[in-house]
């Protein structure tokens, strides 16, 4: 009973945070800010859903697969974000007008 409450609660919280992540993708201005929303919400959002599945299923086949999913999400999500933002910066995609400082571009200009 308690297990079900906690499990379903985590799944609902996860869905809510995934929703906020998608909302961030729509509302934030440029690619870097959108990546911020996408990477962060996926950890607690999707991670929360998977943790809820683990708590509902317990220590069996499904549960272990959910735990593995969490581990791989935590490893791959920041790496993908790094790759995308790095590639975007290299192909000169402009930062938003609100941007105050870009020390990465300054350093790269000095190199060339």
């Amino acid at each position, binding site marked *: 009973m308690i297990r079900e409450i906690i499990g379903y609660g985590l799944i609902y919280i996860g869905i809510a*945070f995934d929703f*906020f*992540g998608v*909302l*961030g993708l729509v*509302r*934030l*201005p*440029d690619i*870097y*800010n959108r*990546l*911020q*929303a996408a*990477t*962060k*919400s996926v*950890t*607690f*959002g999707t*991670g929360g859903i998977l943790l809820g599945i683990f708590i509902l299923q317990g220590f069996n*086949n499904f549960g*272990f*697969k959910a*735990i*593995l999913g969490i581990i791989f999400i*935590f*490893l791959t*999500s*920041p*790496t993908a*974000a*790094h790759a995308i*933002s*790095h590639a975007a*910066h290299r192909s000169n995609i402009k*930062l*938003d007008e*609100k*941007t*105050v*400082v*870009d*020390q*990465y*571009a300054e*350093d790269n200009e000095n190199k060339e």
Partner: protein
Amino acid sequence: MSLKNRSRMAVFFLSLLVWFMLTDITDLQEVILGTIVAIFVSLVAGHFLITTEKRHHIFRRIGYSLLYIVKFTWEIIKANVHVAYLVVHPKVPINPGIVKIKTKLTKESAMTILANSITLTPGTLTVDINPEKQELYIHCIDVHSKKIEDNTKDIGNRFEKILMEIFE
């Protein structure tokens, strides 16, 4: 045992564990196949995992790893609430920019973990690492100052001390 073989042993047991988690262990066939695959993986790619001798004892490092996981989970919850707050706010109060921070970590594995942790903590995203100069370029959603020292204190130091104990 040499460092390479120790690394291969670690990879062997890790991949065996992943295999057992992925499959229902119903008969001997799966155990044998998993062992063969794990041996193959550890022979081909086993020597990458552990490359240097560590300063501290294994139990001390496991303790700090647990501390790191607790701190990391807390930071992730904070990050998610922060993003949720930003996107539901009617004006979207952001002040973005890319800043540079310095790190004291030297090992590549430690710097990778630090970069990934920074990406998952509130308002920051690692764009690039410069391993030679020990610098990280961070995209901040809310920039407070343009000085390298201030940003290093704000962003990097949250995890640096713990990672220092685990990896160096």
